[in-house]
């Protein structure tokens, strides 16, 4: 694979970015020495097991990309535990007609009554949030002004229909000036076009890209192909990750992976869970990758929870030996 940025083993680590195996859903944890932030929270209480195993007892920032249950379900679980959360960054308007919104309001009120306030603000373009006192930061690249204010069902100024996915919050994790990971939520073609048409696609460059839609379709098959090829070309990643659930939707789609490969033939591809396309059987792996992975003990995981470690010189190390050995010895029809 393209170079993992090599550096002296004496260089200290400043943090890590974990793409967590939460099943079908998305949750990325950004760890600094004094702070942990999340990008999305997965579908349910799996994030609680992760936090428990990591010894995390408070959260700095939670960014919610959009209102789909597989991205926001874990937020209800987190809030119910009264885990201190400094701030939620989201665009909640799409939520406000839903019962989920009322659940979250109830929980925020409960926390307030217990003396635990949580701030919130909109995810506006170019918002930059430091992760603790570290050089790590979350940078909001989208949605832009238009998509932030247009609701699902509206049309943009070119008459294109806006969906809730068009307005997905796109976050890039930076270490200083080094872009570590691009996390685009469930961004669809229109959302990506707004970024490209604004001349902001150069901002999408990152060492790692988490595919939108858990490696599934982002619209029609043709729109999916265009979206994936454009996104991978813009990001130019060394690694492409899929946050998928084996027991739902048979993601990643082979045609999505094919689109990745056409654009970046040698990129390292890894999925949190084992696609039925890659193996008809669940395969329990011995040992552990270290971090909590929902599917590991039941043989649902492939790479499980994937970790990008960042050092003080902003070098990035992605250890993928366990995954490579599993794929080489356990799979005969792997998409990656």
């Amino acid at each position, binding site marked *: 694979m393209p170079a993992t940025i090599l550096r002296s083993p004496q260089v200290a680590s400043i943090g890590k970015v974990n793409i967590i195996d939460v099943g079908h859903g998305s949750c990325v944890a950004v760890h600094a020495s004094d702070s942990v932030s999340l990008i999305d929270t997965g579908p*349910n*209480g799996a994030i609680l097991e992760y936090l428990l195993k990591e010894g995390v007892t408070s959260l700095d920032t939670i960014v919610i990309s959009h209102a789909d249950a597989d991205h926001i*379900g874990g937020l*209800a*679980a987190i809030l*119910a535990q009264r885990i201190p959360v400094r701030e939620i960054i989201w665009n909640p308007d799409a939520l406000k007609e839903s*019962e989920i919104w009322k*659940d979250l309001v*109830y929980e925020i009120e409960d926390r307030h009554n217990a003396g635990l306030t949580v701030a919130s603000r909109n995810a506006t373009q170019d918002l930059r949030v430091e992760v603790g006192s570290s050089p790590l930061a979350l940078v909001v690249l989208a949605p832009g002004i238009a998509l932030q204010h247009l609701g699902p069902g509206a049309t943009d100024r070119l008459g294109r229909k806006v969906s809730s996915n068009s307005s997905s919050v796109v976050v890039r994790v930076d270490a200083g000036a080094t872009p570590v990971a691009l996390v685009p939520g469930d961004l669809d073609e229109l959302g990506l076009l707004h970024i490209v048409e604004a001349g902001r696609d150069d901002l999408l460059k990152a060492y790692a890209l988490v595919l939108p839609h858990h490696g599934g379709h982002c619209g029609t098959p043709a729109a999916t192909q265009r979206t994936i090829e454009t996104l991978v070309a813009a990001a130019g990643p060394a690694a492409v990750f899929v946050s998928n659930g084996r027991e739902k939707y048979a993601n990643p789609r082979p045609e999505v992976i094919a689109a990745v490969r056409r654009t970046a033939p040698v990129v390292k591809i890894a999925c949190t869970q084992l696609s039925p396309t890659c193996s008809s059987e669940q395969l329990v792996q011995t040992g552990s990758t270290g971090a909590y992975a929902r599917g590991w003990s039941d043989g649902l995981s492939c790479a499980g929870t994937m970790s990008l470690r960042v050092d003080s010189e902003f070098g990035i190390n992605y250890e993928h030996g366990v995954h490579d050995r599993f794929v080489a010895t356990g799979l005969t029809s792997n998409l990656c």
Partner: protein
Amino acid sequence: MSSDSTRGLERIMVLDDKSQTRETLAIPIEFANRTAVKVSGQLGTLERFLENAPNADAAIADYQLTPGHYADFDGDELVAAWYKRGFPAILCTSFATSNAAHFRRLRRWIPVVMSPQDLEPDSLMRALELTRREINEEFVPPRRPWRALVRFVEFDEAANVANAKVAGWGEDVVGFSASGLPEGLRDSLRVAFQGGDEYRCFATANLGAESNHDLYVTEWEA
């Protein structure tokens, strides 16, 4: 030979109202190189049986124990009571999946419900070991208790139905027996639903439960 993890689970009680079924349930125990203690006779009340139960390290109980006056209690009550006393036991029944609302009231204290078809030496011993660990507060993720927001979406006392959604678990509706809910909670639900409102409260639930029938909800903060 006993494996290290199941050491100490040597004598396993078997409870079923039918003697032939007790013999059948004893087979996987004996294949696991353990001693099956088949409990016959009339067990009486739960309190009486708990005081006078045979010497054993664990147990497997059928759900329906009251036929033929074998016992004055059912297996779910017994297994839950044993859990609270630190004694590992599993419930053997195929009713739990289709009657989740009924079993849910006690599932916090019934770590494993196994159908007779799934009862094999290895699965039996793993289940008892899991139960023993949980009694010592070593929870596997699908069983770990968490604080949870419960939103009741339907309440019909006449039909003994109370349906809810558990935020942070999943989107499926979770059924309860209305009569199995605490009285104070039932009062609050009655008022809310008579006014056309839904009702929310916190409780304790295993948010990692992998299926609807394995989800327990207890310790209502209502």
